[in-house]
């Protein structure tokens, strides 16, 4: 019976990933994230305070629900705590965002509180997508998304400068064999 070739593996000779330098994403992306954060916080705060504005601006409008005078304290406090945590995560997490392109795989690292380092072999990439939102277009940033079979290993590397994104894409295209 012919056994499949199965040489012993020397664990110390396996190339380590931890020793590599990660390429950071564009510094402009931090600004973009902070803008996103501010817009979301503003909308939330306004919607919490909307009844106050309505009752002070239009004295004759009767609100069907009586909110009471200081109803907004607790929701606003909750928003402050959650929003503050989110801001800390954005601020401390940003320097941790980064990617490494190797001969056969790509690795992306992100997150401050919840940290993850994901590696995807090129051989498993089904297709690649470059996207750009409205604000990202002002900053000249692009987001790269790699799709794998089953979808659980999909990877999104956000906030790469357009020129870098094109280079990265052409590297991936040639490596994954999708010319």
């Amino acid at each position, binding site marked *: 019976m012919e056994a*499949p070739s199965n040489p012993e593996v020397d*664990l110390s000779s*396996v*190339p380590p990933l931890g020793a590599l330098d990660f390429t950071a994403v564009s510094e402009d992306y931090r600004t973009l994230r902070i803008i996103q954060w501010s817009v979301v916080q503003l909308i939330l705060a306004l919607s919490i305070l909307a009844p106050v504005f309505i009752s002070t601006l239009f004295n004759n409008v009767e609100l069907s629900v009586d909110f009471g005078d200081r109803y907004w304290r607790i929701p606003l406090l909750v928003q402050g705590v959650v929003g503050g945590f989110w801001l800390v995560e954005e601020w401390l997490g940003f320097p941790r965002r980064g990617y490494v392109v190797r001969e056969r795989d790509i690795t992306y690292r992100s997150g401050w509180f919840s940290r993850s380092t*994901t590696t995807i*072999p090129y*051989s498993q990439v089904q297709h690649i997508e470059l996207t750009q939102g409205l604000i990202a277009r002002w900053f000249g940033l692009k987001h790269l998304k790699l799709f794998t079979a089953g*979808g659980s290993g999909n990877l999104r590397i956000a906030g790469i400068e357009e020129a870098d994104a094109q280079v990265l894409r052409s590297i991936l295209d040639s490596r994954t064999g999708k010319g």
Partner: protein
Amino acid sequence: MDFIEPKRQHPLGVLILSVQFLWKLGQQAWPMLIGLSFSIGDNFWQNAVIASIASLALTGAYALLYYWRFKYSVEERVLIVEKGILHRERLQVPFERIQTIQLFQGPIQQLFGLTGLRVDTAGSSGSEIKLVAISRAAGEALQDILRNHTSDSNEHGEEHGAIENDDDLAAPTETAGQERSQLVSLSISQLFKVGLSQNHLRNAFASLALISYLIGNQPDALTSWLDGMPAFMATLIGAAMLLLILPGMVLFLMSGVAVSVATAFLRYYDLRSSIGADGLHAEMGLLRRNTFQMPYARIHLTIWRSNWIRRKLGFETLEIRQAQAESGGQGGVRVSLPALEPCHRAVLENVLYPDITDNPVMEVLPVRRLRWLLMVFSALPAGLFWLVFNPLIAAVVSGAWLTFAFWTTAKRYASFRMTVYTDTIVLEKGWFWRQRILLRLAQIQGVEWERHVFLERRSIGHIVFHTAAGARRFTYVLKRQGEMLRDFALNQHHARNSRA
């Protein structure tokens, strides 16, 4: 038999389709039909008969049209289906995209010697093709055509990663010859054992849900019946309910057992399975008989499950998962086979994962922190006793609970184990409900090292293997071990996928 000319299905397909459509219509529209029967005029039965005749005629006509416009053919390694009554659709499935070919026979198909054929792909959801009625000979011929081209797809480099596995796996099976080796076949008594060792409590709840669903849909009848009763009767009924609790619980458990045995018979009646050079083959079922055919290279996860009772009987359940649709999250195609014995496991694992008979490259156990977390979570309910009982009883009960929790936690913690072989990773966990997951390194879609900031300080993290059939994780691993494991997994993956 060839399938070059576009063909319709067997004429009896009209009958099967009408039954299917009628069933769907009934499921979705029965409250409306009953409501209409009540509301128009006052002759309920007459309306009901008219409504059923109308829906019969409607579904019959629809089934006829559907049947007439549905044609299938095979052309140059592509399965083609044209269908649609007003909106025409032409589906093309290249053979190399096919994950599973499944033959199925419901009661009508069994009666007339027909078969249905279902083809699953790993593409976007809804990309499956289903023929409901073709003659059994045609079904088997079609299955052969699809299967032969699917399993020898090496030279047509389609699915990355799986290509090399075909090579690897062909070697041991070819030398074993073309004959198939039997895996598991169930006799009636074994079927009873499978039924009796199912989770009765879950099944009992399922039957309870069914009953309450039936009652819940006739709330008017129930309330009007209660309204019509004199007041003292209500008290009597209440008292009777109290007396009924014990027999009710016995009935509840008995119904659970009955449901368990019945579902075991419906699903696994006359189960026959075998393995051969072309993959895993299994057929089972009473009213609806399913036949599966899976090439080895399409198997992305192998999961063995057993509970304590099953282990006492020497049984394990095998679940096989194939690639899932990208957006689906449905877990993809999965087949489960109950009542596999240790010898079956050895045979199957020897074919699928030949390297696990060698010495493992490394063994990874979770750190002690997992034990404390398990302990804390299983001890939490002890707090509830203090809210419910008086202090003396609460102290006794929570003491007993804590002893139990401490004992089971030790057992559970000891059951977590990850064994790494040159090409395979084996994840084991569970003490009462035991689980053993096998995945091949050549097939992983990605590896993730994950931890939150407090774990990072202690150099602990979780390792996640992304496969085409979903992610599997092993938690609370030392960073040094986890990173070494990740590098090793990637290295082996590249080594297995670089020969193309």
